[in-house]
């Protein structure tokens, strides 16, 4: 009886896994089909496998600068991740460890902004970016990203859990505050930093609304906005569009496969404060 119940549950989960994975598989499989097979759907797998769609999107850089978009995406997501890890960890360290007058109040103000939905800042941030002359540059997406409070919160909580005597010992031995941060706190925080780093990278890679607002020339686009452009300009050419989708999805999916445990654990942690 118990065995049957377990089998039923496994069957249910397998069915759910298939339902959730099929659309992702279809992005890849469909990009390998000729257009005629896409319009007249004839099964999930291509009858005639072809790389023509990829050849076409990579061969016409003047019309479809997909390589450019890929570079833009890599640059922006890496820079955002670097900026957030650096700036947020410094702030979180100061707030968690250093005896600064007013740090409690400051922490509360910063954390309170976690509740503010991004859309409410969209118009004023656009105007500020415009004033700074950064519209339509990658910096419009990179610099404001460093201001988010999520990373400060996550790292602050993690730093509080690091035993303090290590740091005290280092200070007694004459280590500077920067030395403690660089050589003790950061190395001990690798799990938190990598979780934050992966979240940030994926979030930035997939971000859609910000590049839509801040970028307007085609060669400045990131992959998600570039791919969306496809839908409007090449509406009937699903094959090309899906090949572009593969270029946008594959790196994120690869990162997910590698860092799956980190990502899933991180999500679980944000929902369950221990």
């Amino acid at each position, binding site marked *: 009886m118990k065995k049957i*119940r377990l089998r039923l549950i496994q069957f249910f*989960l397998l069915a*759910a*896994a298939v339902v*959730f*994975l099929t*659309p992702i598989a*279809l*992005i890849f499989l469909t990009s390998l089909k000729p257009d005629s097979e*896409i319009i007249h*759907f004839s099964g999930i797998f291509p009858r005639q496998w072809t790389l023509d769609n990829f050849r076409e999107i990579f061969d016409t850089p003047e019309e479809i600068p997909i390589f450019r978009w890929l570079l833009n995406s890599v640059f922006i997501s890496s820079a955002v991740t670097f900026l957030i890890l*650096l700036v947020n960890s*410094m702030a979180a360290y*100061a*707030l968690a460890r*250093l*005896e*600064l*007058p007013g740090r409690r109040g*400051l922490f509360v103000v910063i954390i309170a*902004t976690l*509740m*503010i*939905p991004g*859309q*409410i*800042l*969209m*118009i*004023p*941030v656009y105007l*500020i970016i415009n004033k700074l002359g950064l519209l339509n540059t990658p910096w419009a997406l990179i*610099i*404001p990203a*460093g*201001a988010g*409070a999520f990373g*400060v919160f996550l790292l602050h909580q993690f730093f509080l859990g690091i035993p303090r005597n290590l740091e005290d010992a280092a200070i007694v031995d004459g280590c500077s*505050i920067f030395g403690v941060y660089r050589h003790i706190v950061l190395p001990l925080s690798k799990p938190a930093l990598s979780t934050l780093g992966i979240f940030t990278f994926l979030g930035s890679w*997939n971000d*859609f*609304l910000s590049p839509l607002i801040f970028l307007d020339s085609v060669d400045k686009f990131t992959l*998600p906005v570039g*791919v*969306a452009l496809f*839908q409007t300009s090449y509406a009937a050419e*699903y094959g090309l569009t899906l090949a572009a*989708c593969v270029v*946008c999805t594959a790196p*994120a*999916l690869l990162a*997910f496969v590698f860092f799956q445990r980190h*990502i*899933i654990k991180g*999500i*679980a*942690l944000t*929902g*369950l*404060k221990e």
Partner: protein
Amino acid sequence: MTRARYSNIFYGYLFLLPYLVLFCAFILLPLIYGLGLSLFQWEVLSNAPPRFIGLGNYREALGETYFWMALGATLRFVAMIVPSVVCGALLIALALNALPEKSGGFFKAAIFAPTIISISVAGILWRWFFSAEFGLFNAWLAPLGVKVPWITENRWAMKSVVLMTVWWTLGGPMVVLLAGLKQIPEQYYEAASIDGAGAIRRFFHITLPLLKPVLLFVIVMNIIGSFQVFGQTFMITRGGPELSTRVLVQYIYETAFASYRLGYGSAMSWLLFIVIAVFSILQFRLVRERE
């Protein structure tokens, strides 16, 4: 002591400085700036300088059909998506929790995977699935002689967006709920089994009460997130047909960045913020209760 202390304070603020500059420039300032903007009539296309009109923008929004339509579409989305995602996530989390220890990693990863796909890709994909003529779903339904107007008819469009959103976002709540289930001590279930409680009674008398804080957290987070829906409707239905799926964020986006009515757009985003704030406060209380 004092000299070292002062230099510590100095370095401490030095550590904070880069973040604080960004925080002030891109969160605090925009917050105040946006509130200010919402009190001005500022229409970039008309070339007229911004003019102070007090609560005029808010009055306009509350008296305008399009605003209420957008709010209505948003509410319809929230009302459908939250129960679907939460119940679905709970069901799958319960199933995963019933598996032997350390198994089920593949299922968990598979169901979580869609959440790491960009909305532009997911939108393109599902727009194709839903397409009336070339769409995948209708191709699958064709042998049954059924043709569903997934995104071409009002009564279907929002439901289709919800269907897609369940696929795209279920993973997060599932993972959180599963972690919550894992925290319930095994002995409770054993004791209940010995007392003769069946699976259903165990669920309602042990699982649900003990999971309640996590469950409430997931529900509130989901409500807050769902009010901010944009990408799905923007990519899949473009707000149509007949604006039936044009949600608030899309309307704000169009008002600000297509019509360039910046003051009016800001006012509407503050109205959205008020709605979300109610739920945020609720969530804050829930978190406090748990501590």
